[in-house]
């Protein structure tokens, strides 16, 4: 399963500040399904479309996941803007996710 969602914001300045993320999931495993749902909710609420998200299925691309250093699933990597961050788990603890993505304190 691979989905790329790219929503272009109208403001060019906002492009630079766009959040680029990659989520590694393990097929239809419960934790992974939950992670996708949780992440989408967070994105809707806090990023309002200013994000790029790639979802990689470890079962379909295992060697790529290996190369990327994925150990547990689900695993979310924030690629941009810096600093990079990595979050593991089904993302049920929203506060931690926001903290790691650097979105804490921004108004929803």
């Amino acid at each position, binding site marked *: 399963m691979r989905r790329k969602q790219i929503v272009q914001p109208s403001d060019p300045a906002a492009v630079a500040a766009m959040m680029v993320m990659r989520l590694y999931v*393990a097929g239809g495993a419960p934790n992974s399904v939950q992670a996708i749902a949780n992440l989408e909710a967070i994105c809707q609420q806090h990023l309002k479309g200013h994000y790029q998200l790639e979802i990689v299925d*470890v079962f379909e691309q*295992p*060697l790529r996941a290996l190369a990327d250093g994925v150990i547990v699933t*689900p695993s979310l990597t924030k690629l941009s803007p810096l600093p990079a961050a990595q979050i*593991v788990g*089904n993302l049920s603890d929203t506060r931690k996710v926001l903290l790691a993505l650097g979105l804490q304190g921004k108004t929803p």
Partner: protein
Amino acid sequence: MNETKRADPQPLAKIATGIEGFDALSGGGLPRNRTTLVMGGPGSGKTVFSLQALVNAARQRGESGIFVAFEERGREIMANAATFDWGLPALAEKQIYILDAHLSPTVVQSGEFDLSGILAILKAKQEAMHAGWIVFDGIDVLLTLLRDPIVEMREIYRIRDWLADNELTAIITAKMDSQTAAVVNYGFMQFMVDCVIRFDRRLEYGVPAHRLQVTKYRGSDFASGEFPLSFGPSGIEVAAPEPPEIIHEASTERVSAGIERFDAMLGGGLFRGSSTLITGAPGTSKTTLIGKFAETACQRGERTLFVSFDEGADQIMRNLSSVGIDLQAHVQSGLLRMYSGRTEARSAEEHLIKLRALIRDHQPRCMVIDPLSAMAKAGGIGAARAVANRLIHLMKDSKITVVISALIEGNDPQAEATDLQISTIADTWIHLSYLVRSGERNRALTIVKSRGTWHSNQVRELVLSEAGPMLTDVYSAGGEVLMGTLRWEKEAEENARQQQRQAEFEHKQRELEFAEADTRARIKALELDLQRQQAELALYTLDGEARVLSSSEREHELRRMRGADLSTRTDPAAIPPPQFREPS
């Protein structure tokens, strides 16, 4: 109704680890396509064991394997492996894949996660490499992150099922709390896997001692009990159990110990493959005797191993050359291998493993250990005794003729019996002691026992000179034993007395001979006298008879001439013979 046919028991398939001693005590190695749990405290050897099994499988059988490192980084593992002779970097190209599964400390956790991802990755890698082995090293690190014990259990089951599905021989290593000897939080894992090995590292009398124990092996016999292990150049070596029955061949061949009279004292020499113990207080020349034996073995062209726990090789050779024993030449030719070990820092077990390696390398026919009692310096007397026993049996198994020295304080050989107790297993026991008398110290050598051969009961004196060690008689008469210069004095005295007696004897002999000759001469003279007298007598008798005869003949003739009647006179022959009378 007939009984249903009994199924033939299928032996459990095992796969060798190639680790010395372990394959012996586990009856063939680890269970094939099953999971083994390796538990142990920090630094107890779990990672080395697992990696070594992987390396051996790759090197010896060309089998590929994956090493999943949860605790250490791949780099660290490679660096640690470089201390052994595995050649890991070369193997890491194709046959061994080391997966760095170390979670960075900066990773944030939000909610539950599981291991399905990594298992998928591993599956892909395994298929690509055709790997048959997999090691999960330090899995407790990863599982700690899960925090929930129920979740942990679930993930462990997930791993186990995955391993079973994929037909891999697996080793899982986990840290253990050494105090309670129970795997922290993972006690149930022991019930889940097919084989459990426990590694232990503890201090005994100040020296670290490593042990391993197989606590469970489903479907197989194994040697239960703890076995010591040590770390050698090829990795872990385990001291495997000995077969329970003592089976040694007994040879009748004799080898010389280098001193003729010494060999004679033992009825011809030492038996090939026997063990000889030389005990004595410090300075009684044990090393000299041992050195002579070693030199003699080399002169016979036999490979020899000289193990010393007291001095370095150079010092030994220098000291021995002062008594005419040259080992240097034999070291250079390669016949003699000298090894000097330090006893303080290593346990007796480690010494045994080192000696075993030396024996395997050098393949000696003769061996000397000087002194064996030094093994008891570190790690306690109990361990040293066990090791001494095993060492002697090892040498008997390899048919090595060995001479061992042991130090005992004081002059009483009975004291050895309480120390290392080798005196009971050694075949020959020789004791060196000092005899101090009249301001002089001399060395005495006695044979306490010698199995299977006649031996002299006589104490002899050991004398060292530049020509080498020698045995001389002691002066023993009148209930006293003298050595050294006292003996020399006494011997000189004896000699003088002996010579005097001899001279007296000869003198007396000559006297008697003269007397005999004298008597013979006199007898001769008397005999001659007798002969002369006999002759005279015979002559006189003849004369007398002739005179009588002639007078009667003359008368007859006279009468004839006168013409007298012959017949009136009877025949002179009829005349009774005259009685012999003295002529008046």
